[in-house]
């Protein structure tokens, strides 16, 4: 037997990183956990069943969206914006078009403005129906509410396909308007859908909103105070559930949102139940906007005189919209060529996710799943 010299002790002191937290159980939830809505990991430290620490780990779905966009023409990035948050391709399109339209001054025709609002609000319905379905699924109401919600979503996706040719990756907005007009009869079909939608909402509320199990699982769970939400840069329904009145459709009134009368629902407690209900209420407000837009929409062209080659002069712009998940912004730096010098996305999901630990600590691991569901993330947008 060889007698190897004993390994000399290193000149520094080795500390096990969890030494200070002995007795805690470390659980890695994800990246393929059904409750994480995609490839997302939560490193959770548990004391019994209670969450003591939580570290969100993301990046599994990173697709280099921003750098890719810097290497291709402005128009070519448009289909990639569909894939940011694949539930709301129309809202993403709009944010990007809004930013690019600030670079070159192309007026958007009236009909296109109305169609943009209609599409964006339909997208909000798609997003919120899916969200409440998935959220209740996370709560353990398996299947039924999700499928009821998807039934309605299906009808809207059919409308999207009739208009743009694709159900989810619509790629419908262009700088200065829309790619094409909606087909004949589309507006009437949309009116019929909007007319029938409140019935679904009533049914859905009756189905679950008074359910004692849901109340017990969601009320006072994951409370986010208004001040904390503002400090963390939270936007969208999550911010409004904490009682902060901030909706870009009112604040910026981009597009033609100043022409519609609608209210901004606000929560009081900032818990999961408020975040769930605020989406139900927002859908009703979206229906109001849709009704007005479908009533007032004029005839006319849907595309302005956009230049055939999109080559803006050097400038810096930021365009943002109230996407169903929050403030979605595109920050573009043009350098006078056909490609952006810098292309940056401000994804609402990512920033809303940053408070996850604060919301979860002190609750049980089962509640962490519910809290994550109530934040409404899509990993395509978080990781880009």
């Amino acid at each position, binding site marked *: 037997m060889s007698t190897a010299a004993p390994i000399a002790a290193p000149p520094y002191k080795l500390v096990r990183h969890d030494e200070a937290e002995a007795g805690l159980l470390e659980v890695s939830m994800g990246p393929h956990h059904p409750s994480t809505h995609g490839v997302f990991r939560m490193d959770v430290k548990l004391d019994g069943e209670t969450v003591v620490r939580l570290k969100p780990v993301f990046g599994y779905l990173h697709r280099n969206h921003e750098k890719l966009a810097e290497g291709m023409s402005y128009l070519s990035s448009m289909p990639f914006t569909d894939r940011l948050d694949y539930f709301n391709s129309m809202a993403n399109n709009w944010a990007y078009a809004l930013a690019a339209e600030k670079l070159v001054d192309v007026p958007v025709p009236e009909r296109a403005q109305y169609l943009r609002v209609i599409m964006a609000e339909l997208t909000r319905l798609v997003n919120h129906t899916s969200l409440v379905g998935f959220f209740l699924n996370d709560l353990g109401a398996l299947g039924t509410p999700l499928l009821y919600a998807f039934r309605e979503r299906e009808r809207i996706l059919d409308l999207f396909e009739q208009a743009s040719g694709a159900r989810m990756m619509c*790629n419908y907005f262009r700088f200065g308007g829309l790619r094409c007009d909606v087909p004949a009869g589309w507006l009437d079909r949309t009116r019929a859908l909007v007319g029938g939608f409140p019935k679904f909402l009533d049914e859905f509320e009756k189905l679950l909103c008074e359910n004692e199990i849901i109340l017990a699982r969601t009320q006072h769970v994951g409370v986010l105070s208004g001040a904390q939400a503002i400090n963390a840069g939270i936007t969208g329904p999550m911010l409004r559930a904490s009682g902060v009145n901030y909706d870009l459709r009112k604040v910026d009134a981009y597009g033609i949102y100043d022409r519609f009368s609608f209210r901004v629902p606000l929560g009081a407690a900032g818990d999961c139940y408020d975040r769930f209900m605020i989406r139900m209420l927002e859908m009703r407000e979206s229906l109001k906007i849709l009704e007005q837009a479908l009533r007032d929409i004029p005839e006319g062209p849907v595309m302005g005189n956009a230049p055939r080659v999109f080559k803006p002069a050097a400038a810096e712009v930021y365009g943002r919209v109230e996407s169903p998940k929050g403030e979605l912004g595109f920050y573009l730096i043009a350098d006078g060529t056909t490609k952006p010098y810098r292309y940056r996305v401000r994804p609402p999901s990512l920033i809303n996710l940053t408070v996850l630990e604060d919301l979860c600590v002190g609750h049980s691991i089962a509640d962490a799943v519910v809290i994550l569901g109530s934040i409404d993330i899509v990993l395509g947008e978080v990781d880009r």
Partner: protein
Amino acid sequence: MKLLGSGIFKGMAVTLENFVRSYFDRDRKHHLFTKEYAWKSDAPADQLPARADTTVTTRSRNFPMLLHDGKGSEDPMASIRCVACQICERECPPQCIFIEKEYDANGKFVKRPVIFDIDISVCMSCQICVEVCPFDAIVMNSEFELSNNDRFNGLLVRRDALLKSNDYYHRIHPEEAQERDDRMAREKAEKEAKQAAADAAKKKAAELAAEKAAELAAAKPKVDPAAPTATPQ
């Protein structure tokens, strides 16, 4: 005080109502929410969707195809619209088009692609190629049954498989095809009118110049045009 559990029963009543209604509601009985794509691989190629309950509309897009203007059994390459300008290749966001230009025996570019491949596994059906093509040569097909057993060659669609006639395009996307044809005809007419105008202007200018020359010649009849400018040998 509300009875504990009444909310749950209310919800269950909704479920029960939905369950019962699904047998009587016409809309739900005959109109499933999940629909199948129209084209099955056993259906004859180049055929319109026969099923009524399909989601495939006249705008649905899935994968590009190259247009030619030939009829029936004519050689599609004789009337292919693509001139191999490679704009679509450059603009395609995921870079899934590969084009090689065709040269004749003398090495002259004949404005046709000899290779035009699109990779199905990369294409994301975004239609950017259609929009940037200045020659209306590439449009979207709405065939959805593209699955294949051959992992490598089967997913690379070659030029000849991409070639489809304009008639086929008219069958699957009638409005869009009509619009495109109308616009092409209009642009062609405009171009011809412009050409004709330019020709006329040229002719007129030539006539004017000839007239002027004649006038000049008439004004100086005694000058021998050859004599003063004759260069010594």
